[in-house]
């Protein structure tokens, strides 16, 4: 048997001819529709793929993308970044987090700024690296600033599991995990009376495959059933995305409203039950988690269960952590952009006061946000 190499996992899924073939199918089907279909790709990873591979350029005029809130860095409200900043400056603390997070400015600066001022801030590829850092620095407290959706929650849970089993006493957690289905509900049916979610323009969702690898496709069942929005769970390579879009368009042509899985090679209805069990062991849902650009979203965030409070940096450092919520600039329209009611260039501060180097709203914060993508690739999309 021929050996499987890494390139087998992406080469075929980026094939130009296949992409063009899907573009043709989508165009033919879309021509049968007498309306525009707005598809929200929920996940920032999808936004990134769609922009990187120029997928909007392959779409007919009546297929439109709305870029969703699925970027864990973008949606982190400033007060929680301030938590990280304050924790990093506590004596004998090593603050550890994932990638992009260290770039995002809070009200006093970013974690990069804290590092430049002498704080020990590190980024890791895997939370498990905290074990090594803690072992090498027995006199320090390692605080893992945990971020991410369903995809990264199990890694935090495994780390905590190891910390408990190995009796490690110098690793703490600051939990900022959020979940996808709850924010999708918020976008189309907000409980907040001040939010104009009735006018949202989202017709269908492209669901991220990696979330469903963990949580299963079952988490989206209510969207076609209760909210009348088709969902297709799709992979991230361009051929996956194109196939996912063609499946959505087909549903509209055939007047169906269903949950379908494009990424059948890994996603099941139930997902990874071991990972789900581990998450349930250590985490509870918070009543409200505040999303940058969207505000308070019920049951959309996680916290450590009370039984594990001794590992919770948010509990242990309560005295020094700032409490006040910090609003984004009044002119920022990220909430409307995320509901598909406005495009980035309609914002008065887009590209002027708000740029990738000095982001004001959540959609400009990381390369996966809608505004950042428009800023970077914008001219070619509109021309």
């Amino acid at each position, binding site marked *: 048997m021929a050996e499987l190499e*890494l390139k087998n996992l992406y080469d075929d899924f980026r094939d130009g001819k296949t992409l063009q073939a899907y573009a043709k199918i989508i165009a033919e089907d879309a021509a049968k529709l007498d309306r525009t279909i707005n598809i929200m790709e929920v996940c*920032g990873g999808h936004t990134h793929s769609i922009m990187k591979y120029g997928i909007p350029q392959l779409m007919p005029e009546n297929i439109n993308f709305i870029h969703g809130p699925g970027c864990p860095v973008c949606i982190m409200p400033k007060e929680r970044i301030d938590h990280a900043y304050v924790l990093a400056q506590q004596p004998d603390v090593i603050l550890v987090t994932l990638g992009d997070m260290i770039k995002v400015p809070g009200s006093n600066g970013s974690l990069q700024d804290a590092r430049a001022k002498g704080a020990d801030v590190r980024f890791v590829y895997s939370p498990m690296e905290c074990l090594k850092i803690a072992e090498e620095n027995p006199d320090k407290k390692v605080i893992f600033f945990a971020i991410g959706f369903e995809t*990264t929650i199990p890694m935090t849970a495994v780390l905590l599991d190891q910390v408990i089993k190995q009796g490690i006493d110098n690793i703490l957690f600051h939990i900022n995990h959020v979940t996808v289905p709850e924010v999708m509900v918020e976008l189309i049916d907000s409980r907040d009376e001040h939010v104009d979610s009735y006018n949202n323009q989202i017709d269908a969702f492209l669901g991220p495959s990696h979330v469903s690898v963990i949580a299963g496709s079952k988490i989206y069942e209510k969207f076609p059933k209760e909210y009348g929005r088709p969902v297709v769970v799709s992979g991230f390579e361009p051929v996956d995305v194109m196939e996912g879009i063609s499946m959505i368009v087909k549903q509209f042509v055939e007047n169906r409203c269903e949950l379908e899985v494009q990424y059948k090679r890994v996603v099941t209805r139930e997902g990874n039950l071991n990972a789900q069990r581990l998450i349930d062991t250590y985490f509870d849902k918070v009543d409200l988690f505040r999303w940058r650009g969207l505000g308070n979203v019920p049951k959309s965030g996680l916290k450590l269960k009370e039984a594990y409070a001794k590992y919770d940096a948010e509990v242990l450092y309560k005295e020094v952590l700032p409490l006040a919520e910090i609003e984004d600039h009044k002119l920022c329209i990220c909430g409307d952009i995320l509901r598909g009611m406005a495009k980035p260039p309609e914002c008065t501060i887009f590209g002027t006061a708000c740029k990738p180097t000095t982001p004001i709203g959540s959609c400009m914060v990381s390369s996966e946000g809608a505004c950042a993508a428009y800023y970077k690739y914008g001219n070619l999309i509109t021309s």
Partner: protein
Amino acid sequence: MNKTITIAHGNGGEENNELITSIFYKHFKNDILSKSEDAAVLGVPHDSIVMTTDSFTVSPLFFPGGDIGKLAVCGTCNDIAMMGAQPKYLTCSVIIEEGFSTRELEKIVRSMKKELELNNAMIVSGDTKVVPKGSVDKLFINTTGIGEIMQPGISAHNLKEGMRVIVSRDIGRHGAAIFAAREGITLESSLETDCASLYPQVKALIDVGVKIVAMRDATRGGVAAVLNEWAKTSEVCIEIEEEKIPVSEEVRGICEMLGFEAVNLANEGTFVLAILPEDEHKAIEVLQQFNTDATAIGTVTHQHDGKVILNSSWGTKRFLDLPTGELLPRIC
């Protein structure tokens, strides 16, 4: 000589002399350096010299395919070669952290010597400082170099519509190798840095009569940075055929895992060349004698002046922008 470098080795006295003679003079020996004057006296024609400087702070100091010493000579000599000049004289300033191993220092100096020979260049002046532990990360090297121009007029300002853009080999190796070494990613195949002296390739191009319009080694910021700088400086658009960009399987694999793009990764022995279309065949023929991956990747146009455009094989376009900030892995 002690096994480790101490503060005393930077004292300007006996130990300092011992360090200089037993390591630096020993390997860099030449008539100009041996005179040990306050400054080197050089014989170069005053109207055709180029000069450049660079500091080297790489971590780890030793990596697959090279070390900081090789890098310090290649880096400066390559900047000279990229101006169509032959590297001739270099200075070498070293800042050493107290406690650094003497053996490792000598290993580094030896690889500098080897690289100098490839460039037909010599160290004519130097300086050594030893600083307390924690003041530098083991060892920093600065080299400044002077070269003699062989082909004048090479400049980032000269790109015109219709010119062709060539890369000298597959891209991103140095950045990928350093990331892999730093993060402890072990690969089945051995990925090495591309770190190499480029003067021999430049000389070969000039010898066969290729008229070089612009030339730059794609160091920090990678090929993307070079192309963007050219597009801005020459007020032209550079259109790149994405699938033509040569990237090795190992580099692609690392990019996939960590969420990088090969065009943004650093190179230390790869350069980008802009030439007239009639020179394309000749230039590629010469470059392929050094590396078979040398190839044309794009053309200068006026579609979006000041910008670099990547054309995909399925008919879409996107801007290739400069990377901003620290290179960080994406999360999702």
